[in-house]
C-alpha cells in the first residue's frame, strides 16, 4: 500500500469514527438535533434508531476504506472522491435519521434562568491563548538566523511524503509569508474565541468548550510552525497527522464530558427557531453564538444582525490571510 492510500484510509477511518460518535457528543437531551429528553436514547425506539444509524455509517466508511485498500494505483480524483463520498452519505444518513426522530420531539416549557451578577468579561485563563503565537515568531527568528542555509530554490508545497514538489526563488516573502500567515490565523482564532466568549450565554457555557478552542490554537501553532520550518527541518507528515488525530480524539473526549454528561448545562433555545437541528434563526435572541444541538461547540444565530457583522469581519480577515499566502508563495 502506497503512502497516500495509507493516509487517506486513516482519514476515512477518522471521519467514520467522528460521524459514529456524533450522537454521543451532542447534548444528552438532544437526539439527532431533536429535543427528545435525555431518557429517549435508552428506550427501545431510541436504541433501534441509533443502532441503525451507526450500522449505515459504519457500512459507508468500511466500504470506502475497503476500496482504498483493495484497489491500487487509482487516479487522484478517484482517491479524493473515495474520501469525500462516505462523508456525504453519512451526512445524508444523519438527515434521514433526524426526520425519523422528529415524531418523538418533546414540547417542554420554555423556562430561562439567569444569574444576576455583573459582567465578568473574558475568563482569567484567557492569557493561555497567547503562547501559541510564540511558535511562528520563534520560527521567524530561527530562519532569519539561518538565512544562509535556506536553499535558493525555496520549496512552497510538499507532497504526502513530506518531500517538496513546488519551488520558488528564495525571498523574504516566500520564507516568512507562511509564518506571518500562521500568526494571522492564530489571531483569527483568538478573535473568534473572544467573540464566542462575549457573544454567547455565560450561564450555560461548559468550561471545556473554550478550553478545546484554545487547545486548537496550540495545535495550529505547532503544525504551522513545523510547516514553516520545513525547508530546514524535515518533519514527517505522519507526525503532523498523528498530532492532529490525537488532538481530535482528546477534543472529542473533553466535548463528550462537557456536553453530553447528564448534568451538563443546557441552553434553552426555542425549537421553532431551529432548522434541521443545525441552523438557528431567532431575531429576538440577542446571543450571536448559541450551543449546537448536534455535536459540541457553537453555531451562529442567523437572526441577529450582529452575526452578519461578525461573520463578514472574519470573512474579510480570512480573505486577507488567503491573499497573503497566495502572494508570498506564488512562483
Amino acid at each position, binding site marked *: 500500500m502506497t503512502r497516500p492510500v495509507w493516509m487517506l484510509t486513516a482519514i476515512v477511518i477518522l471521519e467514520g469514527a467522528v460521524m459514529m460518535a456524533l450522537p454521543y457528543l451532542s447534548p444528552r437531551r438532544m437526539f439527532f438535533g431533536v429535543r427528545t429528553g435525555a431518557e429517549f436514547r435508552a428506550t427501545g425506539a431510541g436504541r433501534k434508531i441509533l443502532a441503525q444509524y451507526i450500522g449505515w455509517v459504519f457500512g459507508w466508511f468500511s466500504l470506502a476504506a475497503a476500496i482504498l485498500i483493495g484497489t491500487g494505483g487509482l487516479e487522484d480524483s478517484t482517491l479524493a472522491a473515495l474520501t469525500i463520498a462516505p462523508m456525504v452519505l453519512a451526512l445524508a444518513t444523519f438527515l434521514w435519521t433526524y426526520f425519523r426522530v422528529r415524531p418523538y420531539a418533546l414540547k417542554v*416549557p*420554555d*423556562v*430561562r*434562568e*439567569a*444569574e*444576576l*451578577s*455583573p*459582567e465578568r468579561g473574558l475568563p482569567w485563563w484567557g492569557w493561555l491563548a497567547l503562547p501559541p503565537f510564540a511558535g511562528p515568531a520563534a520560527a521567524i527568528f530561527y530562519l532569519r538566523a539561518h538565512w544562509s542555509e535556506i536553499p535558493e530554490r525555496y520549496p512552497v508545497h510538499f507532497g504526502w511524503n513530506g518531500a517538496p514538489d513546488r519551488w520558488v526563488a528564495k525571498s523574504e516573502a516566500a520564507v516568512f509569508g507562511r509564518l506571518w500567515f500562521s500568526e494571522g490565523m492564530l489571531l483569527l482564532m483568538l478573535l473568534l474565541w473572544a467573540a464566542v466568549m462575549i*457573544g*454567547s*450565554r*455565560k*450561564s450555560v457555557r461548559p468550561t471545556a468548550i473554550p478550553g478545546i478552542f484554545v487547545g486548537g490554537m496550540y495545535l495550529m501553532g505547532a503544525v504551522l510552525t513545523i510547516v514553516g520550518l520545513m525547508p530546514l527541518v524535515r518533519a514527517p507528515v505522519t507526525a503532523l497527522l498523528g498530532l492532529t488525530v490525537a488532538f481530535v480524539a482528546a477534543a472529542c473526549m473533553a466535548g463528550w464530558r462537557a456536553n453530553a454528561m447528564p448534568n451538563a448545562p443546557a441552553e*434553552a*433555545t*426555542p425549537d421553532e427557531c431551529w432548522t434541521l437541528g443545525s441552523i438557528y434563526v*431567532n431575531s*429576538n*435572541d*440577542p*446571543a450571536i453564538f448559541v450551543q449546537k444541538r448536534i455535536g459540541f461547540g457553537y453555531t451562529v444565530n442567523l437572526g441577529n444582525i450582529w452575526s452578519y457583522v461578525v461573520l463578514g469581519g472574519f470573512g474579510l480577515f480570512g480573505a486577507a490571510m488567503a491573499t497573503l499566502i497566495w502572494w508570498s508563495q506564488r512562483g
Partner: protein
Amino acid sequence: MAGGPKIRIDLSSQVPAYRQIVDAIRVLLVNGDLRPGSDLPSVRQLAMELGVHFNTVGEGYRQLAEEGWLDLRHGRGARVIARGTPAAASPERLEEFRVRMRNMIAEMRATGIPAAKIAGELRALMEVLQ
C-alpha cells in the same frame, strides 16, 4: 466562585416576560438577596442570558427604577439603591392589590387547592418576605 442570585422566567407563560423579570427581581430585593450597592448585569447581558429582546429587560429595569429600587447608569447596567420606606399605600392602591389577590386566590381555589392550604402558603410567603 459563588454564584449570585438567580431569576427564572417562563416564555411560554401568559405573563409578559418583562413583568416576570420585574416580579422575580422585586422578590429578591424585598427578600434582601439583592442589597443596596449590588450591581446587576447590563441590559445587554441579562437579555442575552435570558434569550429575550433588549427592550424586554430595559422595560423591566425601568419599572424597577420607577419604583425606587434601581439606579440605571447608561451603558453600565443597574445598581441597587437604598430605598426609603414608602408611605402606606393609598386606599385606591390597596383596593387594587385586594382585587388582584382575590382573583389569584379564586383561581387557586378553582384548581382545587383548599382554603387552609392557601392561607398557609400566604403566611409562609409573608415570613420569607418580611
